[in-house]
């Protein structure tokens, strides 16, 4: 194996891309979810992510199986259906130094776990929250999910008469500070969004359309490869410029772009996301614009991808709770158990 590796291909931590892999996938060949796992591996390798600090969390579904297939040196928790958000909430409260990556499905987050999804966002739990959205329940063999197209017909389940839930729009309404949509067939965009999401402090939601090749890949379905390739309208080219990357910033020839074509979104740590307009006008710093855009996309059936909404992060849940800087999980005994004198004093007061 080692002989196959290209010499010199190591990242800042001295690791190869291979070191960021997980177990072998057991998903159907061609499943959109696998390609997202691959992008996670690439990004983690590229940015030199320290896997030991990462936790991977998921619910139940084909999508939720994927944490087993990337970042093998990270702790992982494959929880129960729809409840990954609460587990992530608890884990990040226990240790706010952890970098949390959650993977969920449209069934997991859009139906059984819809409440938890919204409440995690409301609390601003710091994590990257990926939804691998295929419009069906893959693992239970192809029932409609709540994101399925209205009017779509499936072999056993007939016609879906209900309107789809737009999980990105729900995230914005819920108060998420980073909301994006992407397409697992658009690897480069998935990667740049992941990079930006990892740099974000707060809940970063990425709703990735990820075709289920087994149960929902007919070209008429908005969650199919063919449809995605034919109809995707990317809003911007996205690039994360790390903190202190000033020289390159000046290299850009702003004149090449018309006014409004480049948007630079500053992040909390001084890095920024540079967006070069390639599709319809959209400034992701406006919540109203983002909601209008998604409303329009919904009614006109537009498959818009990119960074939809970004806002200066609110305090995270841990910050709101005024917790110690030392993670709760690392507090030594003398910080955890009050003194005997404290107990005696309490007892005196109760006599």
């Amino acid at each position, binding site marked *: 194996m080692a002989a196959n590796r290209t010499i010199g291909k190591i990242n800042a931590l001295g690791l190869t891309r291979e070191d960021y892999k997980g177990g072998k996938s057991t998903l159907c060949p061609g499943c959109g979810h696998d390609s997202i796992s691959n992008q996670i591996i690439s990004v983690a390798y590229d940015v030199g992510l320290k896997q030991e600090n990462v936790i991977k969390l998921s619910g139940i579904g084909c999508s939720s199986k994927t944490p087993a297939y990337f970042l093998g040196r990270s702790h*992982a928790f494959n929880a129960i259906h729809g409840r990954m958000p609460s587990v992530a909430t*608890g*884990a990040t409260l226990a240790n706010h130094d952890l970098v949390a990556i959650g993977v969920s499905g449209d069934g997991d987050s859009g139906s059984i776990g819809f409440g938890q999804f919204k409440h995690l966002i409301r609390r601003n739990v710091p994590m990257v929250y990926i939804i691998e959205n295929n419009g069906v329940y893959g693992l239970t063999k192809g029932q409609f999910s709540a994101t399925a197209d209205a009017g779509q017909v499936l072999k056993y389940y007939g016609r879906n008469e209900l309107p789809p839930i737009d999980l990105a729009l729900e995230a914005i309404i819920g108060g998420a500070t980073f909301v994006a949509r992407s397409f697992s067939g658009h690897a480069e965009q998935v990667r740049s969004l992941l990079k930006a999401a990892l740099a974000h402090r707060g809940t970063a939601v990425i709703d990735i359309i990820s075709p289920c090749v087994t149960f929902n890949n007919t070209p008429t379905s908005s969650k199919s490869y063919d449809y995605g390739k034919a109809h995707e309208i990317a809003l911007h080219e996205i690039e994360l410029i790390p903190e202190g990357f000033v020289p390159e910033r000046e290299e850009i020839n702003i004149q090449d772009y018309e006014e409004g074509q480049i948007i630079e979104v500053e992040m909390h740590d001084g890095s920024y996301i540079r967006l070069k307009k390639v599709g319809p006008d959209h400034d992701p710093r406006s919540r109203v614009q983002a909601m209008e855009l998604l409303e329009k996309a919904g009614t006109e059936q537009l498959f818009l991808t990119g960074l939809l909404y970004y806002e200066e992060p609110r305090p995270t849940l841990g910050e709101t709770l005024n917790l110690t800087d030392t993670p709760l999980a690392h507090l030594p005994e003398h910080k955890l158990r009050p003194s005997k004198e404290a107990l005696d004093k309490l007892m005196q007061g109760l006599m």
Partner: protein
Amino acid sequence: MGVIDMPAESQIQETGKPIVNDFAFMVATKNGSGSQTSNMALVRALFKMGIPVNGKNLFPSNIKGLPTWYTIRVSKDGYTARRATTEIAIAFNESTAAEDIASLPSGGVCILPQEWNWGHTREDITYYEVPVKDTVKAFDIPTERREQVSNMVYVGVVARLFDIPLELTREALVDQFGGKEKPVTMNYQVIEAAYNWAAENLVKSDRFHFAPMDKTKGKIIITGNEAAALGALFGGVTVVAWYPITPSTSLVDAIIENRHLRTDPDTGKDTVAIMQAEDEIAAAGAIVGAGWAGARAMTATSGPGLSLMAEFAGLAYFAEIPIVIWDVTRMGPSTGLPTRTSQGDILFAYFIGHGDTRQICLLPGSVEECFEFGWHAFDLAEQFQTPVIVLSDLDLGMNNWMAEPFTYPDRPLNRGKVLDKAALEKFIAEKGEWYRYRDYDKDGVGYRTLPGTDHPRAAYFTRGTGHDDRAVYSERSDDWVENMARLHRKFENARGHVPQPVVDYDPSRKIGLISYGSNDPAVCEARDRLAAEGIETNYLRIRALPTTQAVHDFVMNHERVYVIENNFDGQLCQVLRIEVPEDTTHMRSLALGDGLPMTPKWIYENVKRYEDK
């Protein structure tokens, strides 16, 4: 009429002597009228007189308006169980007055508002009518406070009629209002006025008296929920996630109130995170995530909430994650009798989870044990990497109990088998490997690493079922069978470490009583009464599941064993039939789930009924 609950009655009729420090009274008011402050003032004043006292709130599921009763029992002999009958009724709720008066024994006393002009329907009781409205009218009290303050009238009248020093009622108010002058004065002036009115206008014509004793010296008075909260805070709890539900809410309220105990003096920041979740599923999920990541995590709930936690309880059992769940039990489903006490969750709690699960359950029987199990539960959870469910109940949790001051934990925190970076390195150096679920010590408990451990081999993949001992996904039957065998080993190992039963045993006695939790005072009193009639009993109080050899032996060593509990199906008895499978003849279930704390009378009568057969 039961014998045990009516000693006073027989004294009234037979001897006519004064009855001192051995009777009970009932305060009937409307829910939400603020009578709790008056009732606690009485309880505290009696406690300050040194008289053993216990107050129980029997309240409806309602915020305002429905009838509510508070019973206060004084007992020179230190009995604290609920009595089925009370000799004195403070009938301050017109809608139940007829019923309240009818319930009094002959020779009883009724105190009621004068303005009702209530006819004296019974000749065998004493009536004291007091001008509630007029007494309060004399003071400038804001309208919104008037109803609550009206209840102070009966405090003053009771103090005068039955001899509580006025000053002690004042001290009781000072305690209750944390020394705040304004509310103390507002309430006390009414007590004093009522006291003086009674002195001038009422002629004492009953035989009940309080007399100072020294039996509460050095004791504290506290609810089980507050005790549990303190226990958790002294046990190093770091994450609390919960969803409000009676009767567990006051447990988390007390954690919030005492959070300052865990504010780091060096930084002013908190060492405990308290999060109100969106429901009990999320509360359970949050503590599972937190326990996994190294927190001491807990929730507090009651039956309906426990149902919602079932899936996570099963996951935590199989993924082997320490969490602590306090279930302060109450009657039935949400629309049932949510403010009535019960021990109806023990079967559900013991087996909660799908697949083959048996959970460690702790069964505190006193406020002291609520405190002790409050911290000890975390040690057990982390030692065995598993959920620990503590089953308290409404009676223990929400009522005030006398107790010995709590003992400071006698041992350091037990964080269980956790390998940090250095320990993991050493482990691997010695054993050549480390796998999460491998049973290196043959005690069923593996070594865990916490997320964030800075070692390339620290990570493992956590899931419920479907893994081998290396924490690798596996659907192989033999892997799973091996895992189940290890979990069984772990569970058997836990038997020796959970709180052991409290046993009073004499081989000459042929009858045994088994019970648990808040029934303890009733069982103890019933035993005394049975013994007085020549029925000697042994007693074993179970403090945890799984049970031990001691329970097995106790069952087998008696001719008859009565299993006494506060539910209908005899749930503990059913558990014991599983735990002691050899027994087919000894155990008899004595179970009553009427929503009220167990009475000695009921136990006495039922044991006697069987024994007399």
